[in-house]
């Protein structure tokens, strides 16, 4: 959103203070501020991370979109760029990082692996898409996506931020008490255990056993 759209034209501003005053809605101001300073978590998983670095470097320069401040700690980050294959061994750490990020937070699945497993989907240690655990805002196709594709994905995220309203966003909703997006951390067992599916796992494998014995 450029500065022209930020102000609302239907109000007449006297000519002599036109350079000093802008009239806008709180939503627009709020979104404009947030979309222009999306700080990603400095965190690379696999091949896509290298293209993420390339997008940060001089030729593509994500700083143009206010996204150059990579934060190594989740406490200061707004955006989790899942840049690469998510393995079962890694996913508990990833979910923990997500839980530590303060609201508002966004997740971008960069590349085929993070979106759905990609070429490694059939692998026994691969989570077929981070969306099985985290709510993903933007999916970026490619293996790996070129820096241009990554930037296009980030612009999509900005468009998404533009459409939010301060009255409706979940992180100001008193009912949520700050843990609306909490995701239970998966556990490494004989295979990856998602605590949200405990009952399902138990019944599936118990039922199978009784069938076979009968």
């Amino acid at each position, binding site marked *: 959103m450029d500065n022209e759209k930020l102000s609302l034209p239907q109000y007449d501003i006297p000519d002599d203070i036109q350079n000093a005053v802008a009239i806008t809605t709180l939503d627009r101001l709020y979104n404009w501020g947030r979309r222009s300073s999306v700080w990603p978590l400095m965190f690379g998983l696999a091949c896509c991370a290298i293209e993420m670095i390339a997008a940060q470097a001089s030729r593509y320069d994500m700083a143009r979109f206010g996204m150059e401040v990579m934060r190594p700690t989740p406490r200061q980050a707004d955006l989790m760029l899942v840049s690469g294959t998510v393995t079962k061994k890694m996913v508990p750490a990833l979910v923990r990082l997500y839980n530590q990020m303060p609201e508002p937070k966004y997740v971008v699945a960069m590349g085929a692996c993070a979106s759905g497993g990609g070429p490694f989907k*059939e692998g026994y240690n*691969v989570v077929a898409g981070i969306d099985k655990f985290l709510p993903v805002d933007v999916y970026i196709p490619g293996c790996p996506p070129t820096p241009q594709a990554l930037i296009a994905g980030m612009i999509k995220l900005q468009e998404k931020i533009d459409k939010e309203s301060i009255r409706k966003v979940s992180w100001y909703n008193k009912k949520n008490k700050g843990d609306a997006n909490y995701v239970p951390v998966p*556990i490494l067992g004989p295979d990856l255990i998602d605590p949200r599916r405990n009952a399902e796992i138990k019944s599936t494998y118990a039922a199978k056993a009784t069938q076979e014995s009968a």
Partner: protein
Amino acid sequence: MAAPASTLTIDLVARFPGIVTAETRPNFAGFIVEKDALVEVATAIRDEFGFDLLTAVTGVDYHPENKMEVVYHAYKTTGGPGLVFRVQVPRVDPVEVPSLIEVYPSADLQEREAWDLLGIKFTGHPDLRRILMWEGYEGHPLRKDWQEPFYEEDFKPFKSRWPDGKHVSAEDKTPLKDNLKFPQDFDPEKWIPDEADKLLYSSLERYTVKSEDGMSTDRIVVNMGPQHPSTHGVFRAAITLDGETIAGLKPVVGYLHRNHDKIGERNTYLQNMPFTDRLDYFNSMSNNLGYAIAVEKLMKIQVAERAEYIRVIMAELSRVQNHLVFVGMLLNDLGAMYTPALYAFEERELILDIFEEVSGARMMCNYLRFGGVVRDIQPTAMQKIKNLVFDRLQAKTDEMERFLSENEVLVSRLKGVRVVDAETAIKFGVTGPVLRAAGVPYDLRRADPYSVYDRFDFDVCTRQNGDMMDNYLIRIDEIRQSLRILEQAIKQIPEGPINSQKPAYQVRVPAGEAYGRIESPKGELAFYLVSNGKPNPWRYHVRPASFVNITCLEQMCIGTKIADFVALLGMLDIVMGELDR
């Protein structure tokens, strides 16, 4: 290309009659050693025959014949052909083989990997834990009778992928509609998950000492990674600290274990080519080259003359950009955030432009084929390469040196900080620039020439001190030598066909084994293949440089300050895609 050099000049059978037998299967090389005498024979191989560098240890599951095999590849750091020796044991649990860690410490992590993925127990190994998967994981995935949750068939192409309108997604075939498989009657609520870390920390316990006067010094374990800005991806190190000094260190890897070997054994030979791109994702061209060489060894085919030169050009360009990025990232690790890396990425982008023009992709090139390359270099791309090599890269390397090599801050940070000495490096199987910086002139392009490297005039770079400064300078030296090779290759490249074979979806690969290795920018990258004549490899194993190089990490770090750990790890130039596969 030279055929796998004959190892029969060494008469191990005469030295150990009754214990060692020569391999008799066609297209297999080396010797079979009796299990109980393995340590004795390996000691002789190291001390009497001079094979001081054990590069690869891996297992093969011969399920139909009901036996397991452990294959060892030993080489001399003075160059020349290698020695393959193997142990065969019946496939009855527990499959036990004596550990070679006392003779060759470089076997450490590789034996742990064989235990993890194939369930081969190495008796005498002091720390035999799972390495790529986590402790508590069910089964040993690379065994031929183990099936992953998304299992469809043994070999690709899967029938479900044929477009007859009956496509079934993999999720629909599993009971949990996900990539999950649990043992019968498993109750997730009763699972106690802390076992893995307990084992890890107990392996570090030997460092907790009490002083003689009864004072016990408090040592703390610090976990660095898997999410840490300086660990080059998802590497994790559990470090025991005595104050600020590192007293013990265990690498914890596997956070990017993408099951390369298992997927590779389901794929056809050609289907594996794009997967090799994703091993060391900085150098997909080098990975392609290593794999192509291994398969060509098996197929016994010649590579088209022009293609050989194209391969060398691409491999050396990728070495140049790897080392440039190494320098940039090293400075990042040392605290000079971003600026040096931005300089490096500027040149890298120009080299990636060339890759994109010849192969169609910036990073995942998938450019080589068995017998040649997939398409020719167009004149415009050739012009770009010439401009870069003759006009730009040399000057940019000089510029980088001018900025950095005599920079006071950098010199005082790097000079005299020990990385590794030659003897330890060889013992722990370190290869690549780190070994050469310690003074061992071991470069596979000279020591065991492949492709057409024997036609070029270049020096094997070495440095004498093995400190951080040398490790940094040797990268700059190697960029210069790569540019020398590139200049010659560009001048000498002949016209002609780019592939000696006809294009085919599937290649015919005779039964046998092959070990194809190249000097990748990070060290020795090798592919061990076993074929049984089918369209898919029976065993597909990658011996990555990064993985074996971190065997030495603990030796390198003990006694240094925690702040230097980041730099030392940077010196090894690990890349997780290759390390974890």
